[in-house]
């Protein structure tokens, strides 16, 4: 690992999508030149509403979307531009993994949990068989799944358990950065709390860094050290979590925080047609 280099650094990252509106060519600037850096073992959240560009940003970092401009460095090493070779893709995936929102679609229903983890280890591990099986047990233990659940198919698991599997699969590569794209958004409150606790414990035990993509401010407050607030592709505020929640400086951040239901809260009309 590069000494002292941030786990992830993003500079002037930009993405323009080209499409058509009627007969005319249209451009959509999804991400408009954003920069941030994520320390090794740190936890940074990108918060924004739909269309803010937060997910496009995550997809560029894992390599699912090609940036229009800007630079992405993982462990101090810049991403090469242009088409990705399989080898380069694997190399990146070893360092950066992603967990998606919906574990019902991100798991292959024909794979038992152990097989799913075994495949991930086979791709990134290069270990001998016995070591791989031991690692599977470790991963199951880490995410709080028992042996019986390890032998189960996804259909036999609840939403919370499935999300534990996708987290274990992402951790199989032993990544330095884990991107969590709305990873707890579809879970019930009682289960969401379990997964948030699990994520906090994993970070303290493994020193993996989190890039947490979310629309939910309460969740972000719980999981992250720093928050980037995005709106229409731009960063409107970037601050330590405590500061952002106690003294937000940007009016949009204030509005976002003000619209979260809490005891004593009443919804207000602001007269903005979204």
């Amino acid at each position, binding site marked *: 690992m590069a000494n002292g280099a941030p786990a992830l650094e993003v500079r002037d990252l930009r993405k323009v999508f080209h499409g058509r509106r009627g007969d005319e060519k249209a451009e959509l600037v999804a991400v408009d030149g954003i920069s941030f850096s994520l320390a090794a073992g740190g936890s940074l959240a990108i918060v924004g509403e739909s269309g803010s560009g937060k997910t496009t940003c995550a997809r560029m970092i894992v390599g699912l979307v090609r940036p229009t401009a800007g630079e992405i460095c993982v462990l101090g090493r810049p991403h090469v531009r242009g088409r990705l070779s399989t080898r380069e893709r694997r190399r990146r995936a070893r360092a950066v993994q992603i967990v998606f929102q919906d574990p019902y679609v991100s798991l292959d229903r024909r794979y038992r949990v152990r097989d799913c983890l075994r495949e991930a280890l086979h791709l990134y591990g290069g270990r001998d068989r016995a070591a791989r099986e031991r690692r599977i047990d470790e991963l199951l233990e880490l995410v709080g799944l028992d042996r019986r659940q390890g032998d189960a198919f996804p259909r036999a698991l609840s939403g919370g358990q499935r999300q534990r599997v996708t987290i274990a699969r992402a951790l199989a590569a032993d990544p330095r950065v884990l991107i969590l794209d709305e990873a707890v958004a579809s879970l019930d409150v*009682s289960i969401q*709390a379990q997964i948030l606790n699990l994520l906090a414990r994993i970070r303290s035990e493994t020193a993996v860094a989190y890039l947490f993509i979310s629309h939910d401010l309460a969740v972000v407050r719980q999981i992250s050290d720093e928050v980037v607030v995005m709106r229409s592709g731009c960063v409107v505020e970037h601050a330590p979590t405590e500061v952002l929640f106690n003294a937000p400086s940007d009016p949009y951040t204030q509005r976002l925080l003000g619209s979260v239901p809490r005891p004593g809260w009443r919804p207000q009309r602001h007269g903005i047609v979204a």
Partner: protein
Amino acid sequence: MSALLELERLRVELPVEGAMRPVIHELSLEIAPGEAVGLVGESGSGKSTTARSVMRLLPSGADISGGLRFDGVDLLGLDRRGLREFRAREVSMIFQDPRAHINPVRTIGDFLVEVLTTVRGERREAALARAEEMLRDVGITDASRRLRQHPHELSGGLLQRVMIAAALLAEPRLILADEPSTALDVTTQEEVMAILDEQRRERNVAMMFITHDLDLAAAVCDRIAVMYAGFIVEEGAASTLHAEARHPYTRALIAARPDSGARGEPLRAIPGRPLSAFEAPEGCAFATRCPHVGDVCRTTRPPLREFDGGLVACVRAAEIREGAAPAQAANGV
């Protein structure tokens, strides 16, 4: 106070792989004219099924028993024609995903005037004028242009306002709102909920508001019923439920929220997962996850009874309030 809507020991079963499975075990609830009642619960608790039972919108083969009355009329005894009248005149429903419930090939104007022209026999021009006025009431400024547009041209927040306008146009006495703001961004949610709340109050329409968000329900409702596994476990005034929750499930649900405690502290997660109604054990449905569980809880189903100005279905509620029922250390991770 005579109830507008009355659910009396309502029980709903659905056929699953040939066997009937309970979705709602036993549910009693009243909503007075103009009153807003929140049904709060996690997935599978039966809150949406409750609303659909009132609309008689359950899948075929569903078995519904108990009492279900609207303004004294037995809804379970309505024939097709009576049901059509009831749905068109007395009650409106607002769904979570407006895109799935508005015909995509018809204009917003067509959608809004349909019930007025077909059921009420109003003339189209008059109905359109009313629709335009209603769109302005729900905060849509360029109403006449919107009437000519199709659903795909409107954002989710705008479309949900159209849904609210449609619900109000029928001048119902009851609105069933099933997670109407869940799919929306938080700032849009605030806007839409403010409009729904304000318009409903102005017109004195009663509401059954279904949500998983206790604080959101508290903000727009008079009373809240908390559901778990097909039962109401607690019911009380919306203004005091957060501070004075009495049922262990309600308390656990509040404590598990990420904004509840100090930052950096582990959350007080509820172990296990929410049970569906058909999985509910012999005794209290929450017994398998409850930190205060005692032997009696595993064998006896606790009735919903008056307690402390509200209703609670927990035999140990008094002990828990006095702090005499020690919580067992339970950590969900």
